[in-house]
């Protein structure tokens, strides 16, 4: 099973929602569309479903051209951010509804509904009406209905966004298992990098109507092809520093410079942007060779076990995530240290030049 988008684009009036895009998704795979609001996630999904026709290009299902084939004639299931259930039907009837439409016999329907209810822990609620359920249970009912169809393509558009934080955590843990047990192509849209990491699978990062990268989720996180991708796939945001490499020095800000160390030493002289993640900053100087920067504290957020120190470094805002409680007053000058093995380097066009050494596994 596979879904391919070939040279697909979507324009509406003067607005381009999706620039020319190629993408192939395999059966049994979970594919995350990660990007901010209005980056094109929903537009792309609507074309995959057959709800909208692309302006250019073709959509292939197992190699067959299905462009323009309406959604009713495709075996597609969708789940939206807003829970959609039939309010007058019981949970059982809600889950059973797509099977009834297909005219399956009662025994088969019962078996399939019970399987889906098992998977989503709805067994005790089958007789209730959706509005008697909590938000999380309502969304699980919508998910069960999508799964029971045995659809070949399942599209989930920010399905957990309206749920409580803890419930999201539990469902995120269950969803990958549900996905692998089905054989369908799953597409899951989210704005949250953490959610993509928890779900695993593959991730396509989206920015202003374009897919910037598509690869296994951790590969995209560890080796983002460009600054846009790194930005979309970081939470807290990555810290950036514009610099100029000249010989054995890197210069930044107003006449500040430090030695070009690590992989930076071997780069040709040019302008670059350095990027490093907030969890890769140190407040104490280690024994190894490190880059040293000084910033001014804006505000510190404490989570109970960690501190997010927000710093102003010249024109940039940086976040430094450290273990322990560091309640540092605003406007304090703070030294921070960055291991050169943990930095990303992007060239003047924002393309990745160096990624941190991959960690051993």
């Amino acid at each position: 099973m596979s879904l391919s988008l070939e040279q697909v684009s979507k324009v509406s009036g003067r607005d381009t929602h999706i620039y020319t895009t190629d993408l192939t998704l395999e059966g049994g795979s979970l594919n995350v569309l990660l990007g901010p609001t209005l980056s094109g996630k929903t537009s792309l999904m609507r074309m995959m479903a057959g709800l909208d026709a692309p302006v250019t290009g073709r959509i292939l299902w197992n190699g067959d051209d299905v462009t323009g084939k309406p959604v009713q004639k495709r075996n597609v299931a969708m789940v939206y951010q807003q829970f959609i259930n039939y309010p007058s039907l019981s949970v059982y009837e809600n889950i059973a509804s797509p099977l009834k439409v297909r005219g399956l016999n009662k025994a088969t329907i019962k078996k399939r509904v019970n399987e889906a209810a098992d998977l989503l822990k709805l067994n005790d609620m089958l007789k209730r009406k959706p509005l008697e359920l909590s938000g999380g249970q309502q969304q699980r009912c919508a998910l069960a209905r999508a799964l029971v169809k045995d659809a070949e393509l399942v599209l989930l558009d920010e399905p957990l966004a309206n749920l409580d934080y803890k419930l999201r955590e539990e469902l995120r843990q269950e969803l990958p298992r549900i996905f692998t047990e089905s054989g369908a192509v799953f597409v899951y849209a989210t704005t949250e990098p953490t959610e993509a990491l928890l779900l695993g699978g593959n991730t396509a990062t989206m920015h202003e109507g374009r897919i910037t990268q598509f690869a296994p989720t951790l590969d995209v996180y560890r080796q983002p092809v460009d600054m846009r991708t790194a930005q979309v796939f970081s939470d807290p945001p990555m810290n950036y520093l514009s610099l100029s490499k000249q010989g054995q020095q890197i210069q930044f800000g107003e006449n500040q410079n430090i030695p070009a160390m690590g992989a930076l030493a071997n780069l040709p002289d040019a302008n670059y942007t350095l990027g490093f993640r907030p969890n890769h900053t140190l407040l104490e100087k280690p024994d190894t060779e490190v880059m040293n920067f000084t910033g001014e504290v804006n505000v510190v957020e404490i989570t109970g076990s960690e501190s997010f120190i927000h710093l102003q470094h010249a024109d940039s805002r940086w976040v430094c995530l450290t273990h322990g409680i560091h309640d540092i007053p605003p406007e304090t000058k703070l030294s921070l240290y960055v291991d050169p093995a943990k930095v990303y380097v992007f060239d003047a066009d924002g393309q990745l030049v160096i990624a941190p050494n991959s960690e051993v596994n």
Partner: protein
Amino acid sequence: MAEIHLKNLAHSYYPNPKGDGDYALKKIDHVWEDGKAYALLGSSGCGKTTLLNIISGLLHPSDGQVLFDGVDVTDLPTEERHIAQVFQFPVVYDTMTVYDNLAFPLRNRGRSEDLVKERVMHIAEMLEMTDVLKFKARGLTADAKQKISLGRGLVRENVAAILFDEPLTVIDPHLKWLLRMQLKALHHRVNNTMIYVTHDQTEALTFADQVVMMYDGYVVQIGTPQELFERPAHTFVGYFIGSPGMNILPTHIDGNLAKINGLSVSLPDSYKFDADKKIELGIRPEFCSLSREEGLDSIPVSIKRIEDIGRHKIARADLAGQEVNVIVPEGISITDEHTHLSFDASQINVYSNDWLVERGAQS
């Protein structure tokens, strides 16, 4: 600015409540200090919005009083309580400029344009909005609109408190960071009493001086983020705070030895419990570690699953039928051969019928 006293406060949505079960908000008596930031944290249906609505005056409590700086405001309508409110969805006039939006509450009260200008410029500067004052609100991003909502509350003089009801729900993750930081910086500057309702632990912990943790209508703990993390007063707090939450393991304790399905764990303190009590150990995934070799106090586990989430990994281990989550720091390798689990003993909490047993309380 005001101190808020919730005096013997409780609320039931039924006309004649009978037992505790009929109360959406169980009885509380708390004084919230002037100028501090409080977060009301809990899952949906826990009573946090009920409490917020009582403070804002949208709801009249069935029992007790609300006092602002000692003055009973229980019967006052919202508009006479001098509070600013920010809701999930921004409340702005799309066709007006940012300046006119911010000026609206003052002009409505017939203030002079000189005063309006002074206040609007002051607030705009604090919210980092001076360069968009001439723009129509319509074209702005969700986070900018949320700042206007906040600014319209702040622009009035003598705001007693600022109330936030899930204000970051519609904001994208990147802008959440920025807006959260600006809110926090703003709190340092204006020193208003702030009350922030959310189900998101990160928002609550990072925003608040004091987190008010609610569960099933009860306030189960009020404490600093550190207290909630290290010493959760109730197993629910342990579960709710942290991702994943605290491991809660049924156990039998005899003296300073805890047994989990026959496996022994030494405790830093000694305990004695009645046989009918439900006793559990609470240990956060951050304070668990896995190794290949048996250690002094290690217990055998099997690894069921390892999830790599970039910053760290979460190992899901099986301890004699109990799931135990372990957070493995980035850069440390982990395989299913890591079958020995150790706890940082100083970070083990003991619970009796779901409530924390204070250390040294029994000896």
